[in-house]
């Protein structure tokens, strides 16, 4: 199944250093067949396990990140054929409450939109080559391994295979 990446010239999957507009990403999935749109908006949280974050920097391997976002779109299309998906992920330095990612999913009925949307964010955290560096008051660090996979004895994580 081939998933349209562009719809009338609109880029459905984006990795960008620019501020993301929720409205813009959402509008990409609006259509007469849809009765429900679910957005996920990831924002920079100030406290994680009691530790104060000052800022985050996201670095991406842009060409591959886009390709992996498209792949997630294809997977969703396979599981929820009526869904339409748009994703934008930001890169660069972000302040508290800045938007890091917006996922918009439209479907005829709402249940599918919630499910497909949640699937998209889970998969982003598994396979999309984007990394965040957290800056705290006492230092900074690249965050990896959010899913607590410590290593990949097979050369790549299980999650890379579509579940």
């Amino acid at each position, binding site marked *: 199944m081939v998933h349209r990446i562009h719809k009338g010239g609109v880029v459905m999957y984006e990795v960008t250093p620019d501020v993301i507009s929720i409205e813009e990403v959402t509008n990409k999935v609006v259509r007469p067949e849809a009765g429900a749109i679910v957005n996920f908006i*990831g924002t920079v949280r100030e406290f994680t396990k009691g530790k104060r974050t000052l800022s985050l920097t*996201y*670095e*991406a*391997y842009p*060409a*591959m*990140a886009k*390709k992996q976002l498209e792949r997630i779109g294809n997977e969703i299309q396979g599981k929820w054929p009526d869904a339409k998906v748009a994703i934008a*992920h930001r890169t660069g330095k972000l302040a508290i409450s800045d938007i*890091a*990612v917006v996922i918009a999913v439209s479907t005829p009925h709402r249940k599918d939109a919630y499910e497909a949307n949640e699937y998209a*964010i889970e998969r*982003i*955290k*598994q*396979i*999309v*080559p*984007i*990394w*965040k*560096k957290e800056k705290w008051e006492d230092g900074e*660090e*690249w*965050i*990896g*391994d*959010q*899913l607590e*996979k*410590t*290593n*990949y*004895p*097979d*050369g*790549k*994580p299980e999650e*890379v295979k579509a579940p």
Partner: protein
Amino acid sequence: MITVQCFAHLREQLGQDQITVEKEKLTVKELLKELTDQYAIQTDSLMVAVNEEYAEPEDSVTKGDRVALIPPVSGG
């Protein structure tokens, strides 16, 4: 020669965003071995991407391919 892109902590550790291996063709597994030897990189938690797709250990890498080392991702 095969050029390998590096990102995030790996890029910072190495002080450069790409490294090279003097080979024309080898497997992903062999590539990782070479990188460990040449650059003392800890490859346990690294994936290799070839032409923007995740590659298996037995997949081959040829000069001209776009190759990258992918540490555990943390986007989203």
